């Protein structure tokens, strides 16, 4: 097994603000080791590259430098410049080249440095990768992954062009799968699944989570795409969340447990296709729902989840759904106006109290 590398000090990678004990996914007795979200992604890439010679990486500065966040660091030394391929700053051709390679039997994993830059690649991702199989009547498949860091973090964001949460850009496109893990365990298992999947997968990494740690099994495992994961069982209220917001939901659940409020946390770790059944089943059980997303409010993922709840569990609702999201604004820079931009644990606690007291 590869040695665990010390995480690089890179843009936006900061100390974790939450304890790994908050989300434990490996049962006692299963051989596991603690690693960061960033290391888990790196290990998934490494293991898939060792397993399958058709897997290769391409992206800006992903070679010796290891990418803007150091995710691919050490892979270049292990696999060389052919399979860890540094590209010019050409986002559309990074994505398009991944498509072309995928069409002829490779399994490329492209990295776009920040999701914010993917506007330059969106034609290839949304118009070409997503539609090629359909518009050729099933003549081809496009097994590729586009990895993109996204999102901000408390007091650590890097303003309007490096901190957005843009999962709905891609979730709105039929033919794409969109994955957004919240933990090291999920990041590794879902990335391996994404690489093995025969469809184009947009794999979003919450960059504030890169340093977050958790237990990851030592054995090979793959998690299913297209499923929500119930991170915490509860009976009074369902919190639907993804990415970093799952940690706030879990922290809120732990806090309110002491007051006798039982919170179920549903992690939408695959944004699309959306596992409507798990969300519906949970809210039919609890009768109350809070939806929490880091993306901005209008037309965002939280709105979609709320609508699923209305369709799946309207008759069971005991209170109106509460929606917590990023503020409908470009991400600001100064701490004073960045504060409150994204929901935090206290916001989730207040929202839960609100639906409980309706």
């Amino acid at each position, binding site marked *: 097994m590869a040695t665990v590398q010390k995480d690089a000090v890179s843009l936006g990678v900061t100390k974790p603000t939450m304890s790994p004990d908050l989300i434990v996914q490996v049962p006692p007795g299963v051989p596991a080791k603690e690693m960061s979200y960033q290391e888990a992604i790196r290990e998934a890439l490494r293991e898939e590259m060792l397993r399958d010679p058709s897997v290769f990486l391409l992206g800006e500065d992903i070679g010796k430098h290891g990418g803007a966040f150091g995710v691919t660091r050490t892979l270049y030394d292990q696999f060389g410049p052919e399979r860890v391929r540094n590209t010019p700053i*050409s986002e559309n051709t990074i994505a398009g*080249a991944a498509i*072309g390679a995928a069409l002829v*039997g490779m399994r490329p994993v492209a990295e776009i440095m920040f999701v914010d830059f993917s506007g330059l690649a969106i034609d290839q991702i949304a118009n*070409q990768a997503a539609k090629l*199989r359909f518009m*050729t*009547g099933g003549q081809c498949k496009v097994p590729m992954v586009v990895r993109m860091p996204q999102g901000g973090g408390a007091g650590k964001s890097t303003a309007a062009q490096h901190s957005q949460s843009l999962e709905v850009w891609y979730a709105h496109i039929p033919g794409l799968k969109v994955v957004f893990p919240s933990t090291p365990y999920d990041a590794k298992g879902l990335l391996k699944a994404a690489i093995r999947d025969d469809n184009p997968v947009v794999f979003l990494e919450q960059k504030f989570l890169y340093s977050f740690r958790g237990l990851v099994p030592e054995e090979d495992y793959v998690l299913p795409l297209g499923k929500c994961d119930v991170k915490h069982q509860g009976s009074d209220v369902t919190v639907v969340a993804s990415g970093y917001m799952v940690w706030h939901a879990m922290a809120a659940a732990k806090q309110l447990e002491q007051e006798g409020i039982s919170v179920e946390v549903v992690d939408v770790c695959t944004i699309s296709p959306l596992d409507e059944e798990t969300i519906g089943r949970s809210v039919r059980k609890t009768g109350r729902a809070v939806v929490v997303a880091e993306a901005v409010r209008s037309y965002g993922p939280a709105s979609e989840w709320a609508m699923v709840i209305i369709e799946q569990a309207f008759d069971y609702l005991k209170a109106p759904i509460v929606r917590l999201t990023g503020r409908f604004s470009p991400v600001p820079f100064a701490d004073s106006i960045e504060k409150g931009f994204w929901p935090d644990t206290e916001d989730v606690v207040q929202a839960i109290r609100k639906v409980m007291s309706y």
Partner: protein
Amino acid sequence: MEITREMMLEMYRRMVRIREFELAAIDLFKRGMVKGAIHAYIGQEASAVGVCMALRKDDLIAGTHRSHGHNIAKGADTKKMMAEILGKETGYCKGRGGSMHIAAFDTGSLGALAVVGAGIPIAVGAALAFKLRGEDRVAVPFTGDAGCNTGNWHEGLNMASIWDLPVVFVLENNQYGVSTRITNSCKIKDLSLRAQSYGIPGVRVDGFDVLAVYQAAREAVERARRGEGPTLLVTESYRFEGHYAGEPEVYRDRAEVQEWRKKDPIPRFRRYLLENGVANESEVAAIEAEVKQEIADAVKFAQESPQPDPATAMDYIYA
């Protein structure tokens, strides 16, 4: 490089096949039987045929919204193509693509991509895969002249050149991007000069002359196959029809079109075959008659084929 009699007759056959196919498609369109649009390749036949005759079956092409000609030149079945244009289940894309998206993976056609320049990065990626696997295959993206101002094009030429990928970028200058003359969208007249910025050969050839296109393409393809990197091949011709069938063409004079039509590559090559004793009149006429019959059969096949079953509307979205 010797060009055999058989090859020349095959070139003529494919050029006539493209012409007859396009005329039939326009006819169906004018009779209201084709939805959407037909972007005819009439006048440019020598470009696609000259290039594709220099390719092997396992080499790949990527096309544009105007790619009936590229597909036929690469060997696609005209029945399945015509059926696709009419939106039939028997079409190459089972009626999901239509005229602008014909792909024939069995002949090495990765598909027609109707966002200008989009095929460039995809062909670059296919060529990268060939190189990574040590295969001697070549990828050939076709683009119209207007495509050379897209980011796709510049990014793609650059990436292919820095990695010496086996790509032949065919830039078909038909003088117009929809209504805009290339002289109004590019400062330079010789578009092959752009190759210099990427440190690769740029070749400009008469796109009405199938033998000249073939020779130039052959050289570029062999260079790519040897691992020496990409070439930019500019074929100079003219779009005889409007941007799409029935388009009013308010931006150009009829006289201009008539003047260019004198350069028609098909009568020109026919004369060449006769004058150089490659074939006699009855042999050439036989090819024309066979192709006419083939296209008539294709139209009949397409018209008689069923549309996709509505129950299959959600098929092929995910693998």
